[in-house]
């Protein structure tokens, strides 16, 4: 097998957008490796509407959004290898993948990590109690129900008020299960108002804020949980403990970028995003390895995931044309910012989009951009929420003036 110049790992929305944009630019020496038997990634199980409003000015379901890209890419006769799981990625970009015919080694010049995210599990937060059957991550339950057609339980409790949990509360109710309640450790919900109304209120499902599950009971299957209110320091208040009878617990407690391959390849990781550190071309600390989508940082809107894939394609196209390497200026996050991405920008870059999240809900806030020690831009912001990724476009006129360091600071007004 001859070696392709470019390998994209993952055929979800990030990988598809990147591949399509490469073909459209006339770059066709590309292989897409996807471990599942179909393209589309997580979108295939997100059968609700709410995808693509920004890009297509139309609300698609997840599978339909993916189909738009698949339909556009097929005429290029892409080299897509399905059922192909990448097992190893080395710093020199040698990679090993397995499929039904065995193990294969490739030596591409460029690798794009588009491998999505993993769900946090019971192990990540350490819920005590029995190791009962019937405890699922919300995403696995979603996959079983929406793709395989199995309902994982009849009497369900959901931990975590993020959108995936809310969407599953509605979906399981409509499929005949009883959703007893949703608990959120924080004093505020992480879900969109629309989902709180249309997934919980519509079906009279209670949302318990500042509440968590302190124990899971039942052998072999869950028969109850202990629910506890937490204090301001998120510590359970024992007197509030109550037993709730359920046969299933869904965990919707967050996603983490899939880091396994990145760590093998020795990429520098950002403890804040939990993904690789990248520059404004979305290139990681290893020359020729790029990252986009949920593998880079967790997204709530697919439109931005697709954009990131396309941005990587643009950067690859430029890198194939010229070897010129400008120095990179570091960008640091300060104050109440959970993270900022990218973590550096090329000196002389023509434009820059910064992505950030906040650590806590803020009614009013101010963002200050500090370049080479001076405040160069002040942006007032309203209603910032940790569950919503924010973007700032930096004007070219500003970019061209700064050569040593950038910092972005978020504070109360």
């Amino acid at each position, binding site marked *: 097998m001859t070696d392709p110049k470019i390998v994209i790992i993952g055929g979800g929305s990030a990988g598809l957008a990147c591949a399509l944009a490469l073909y459209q630019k006339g770059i066709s020496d590309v292989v897409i490796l996807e471990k599942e*038997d*179909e393209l589309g990634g997580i979108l*295939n199980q997100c*059968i*609700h*509407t709410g995808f693509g409003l920004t890009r297509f000015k139309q609300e*698609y*379901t997840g*599978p*339909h959004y993916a*189909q738009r890209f*698949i*339909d556009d890419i097929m005429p290029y006769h892409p080299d897509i290898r399905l059922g192909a799981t990448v097992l190893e990625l080395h710093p020199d970009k040698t990679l090993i993948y397995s499929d039904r015919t065995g193990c294969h080694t490739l030596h591409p010049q460029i690798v794009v990590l588009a491998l999505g995210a993993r769900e946090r599990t019971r192990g990540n937060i350490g819920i005590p109690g029995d190791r009962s059957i019937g405890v699922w991550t919300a995403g696995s339950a979603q996959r079983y*129900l*929406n*793709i*395989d*057609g199995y309902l994982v339980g009849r009497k369900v409790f959901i931990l975590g008020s993020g959108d995936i949990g809310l969407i599953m509360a509605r979906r399981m109710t*409509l*499929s005949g299960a009883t959703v007893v309640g949703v608990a959120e450790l924080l004093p505020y919900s992480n879900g969109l*108002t*629309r989902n*709180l*109304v*249309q997934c919980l*209120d*519509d079906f009279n499902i209670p949302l318990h804020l500042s509440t968590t599950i302190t124990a899971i009971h039942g052998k072999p299957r869950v028969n109850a949980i202990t629910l506890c209110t937490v204090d301001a320091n998120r510590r359970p208040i024992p007197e509030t403990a109550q037993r709730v009878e359920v046969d299933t617990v869904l965990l919707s407690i967050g996603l983490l970028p899939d880091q396994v391959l990145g760590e093998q390849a020795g990429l520098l990781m950002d403890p804040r995003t939990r993904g690789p550190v990248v520059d404004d071309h979305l290139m990681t600390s290893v020359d020729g390895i790029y990252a986009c989508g949920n593998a880079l940082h967790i997204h709530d809107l697919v439109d931005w995931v697709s954009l990131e894939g396309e941005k990587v394609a643009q950067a690859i196209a430029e890198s194939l044309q010229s070897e010129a390497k400008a120095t990179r200026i570091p960008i640091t996050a300060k104050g109440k910012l959970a993270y900022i991405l990218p973590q550096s920008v090329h000196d002389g870059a023509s434009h820059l989009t910064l992505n950030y999240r906040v650590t806590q809900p803020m009614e009013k806030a101010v963002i200050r951009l500090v370049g080479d020690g001076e405040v160069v831009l002040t942006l007032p912001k309203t*209603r910032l*929420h940790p569950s919503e990724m924010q973007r700032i476009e930096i004007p070219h006129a500003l970019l061209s003036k700064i050569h040593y360091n950038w910092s972005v600071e978020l504070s109360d007004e």
Partner: protein
Amino acid sequence: MNKPITCIICPKGCQITVNAETSPWITEGNACARGAAYAIQETADPRRTLTATVAILGAAIPRCPVVTSAPIPKGELLSTMDKLNHLTIHAPVNAGDVLVENFAGEGIHLVATRTLENTHAA
């Protein structure tokens, strides 16, 4: 007085009450006119777009995701799910295909949202 309605048009999430005894109806708690229109629609005729799956034969997977072509009355969600449970379709289908015309009445169709090839054909 009716239960307050949480406005979902923008992230502010105003709590709006609708007084349906006056003519025209009066809304309270909305910070803008878009909220008033939403709250009145929610009171008069609340509707939701239904997404679900139906059984499919001949495809690589057993379920095909579907959507109603327009929002249906909120009170009909469960009965519409019941109708879906009795439906089986056959591959191939294309995303966007109308599977059942006028499925929910009022000219609202049932539409497939995923392309599934017939994997059993020779």
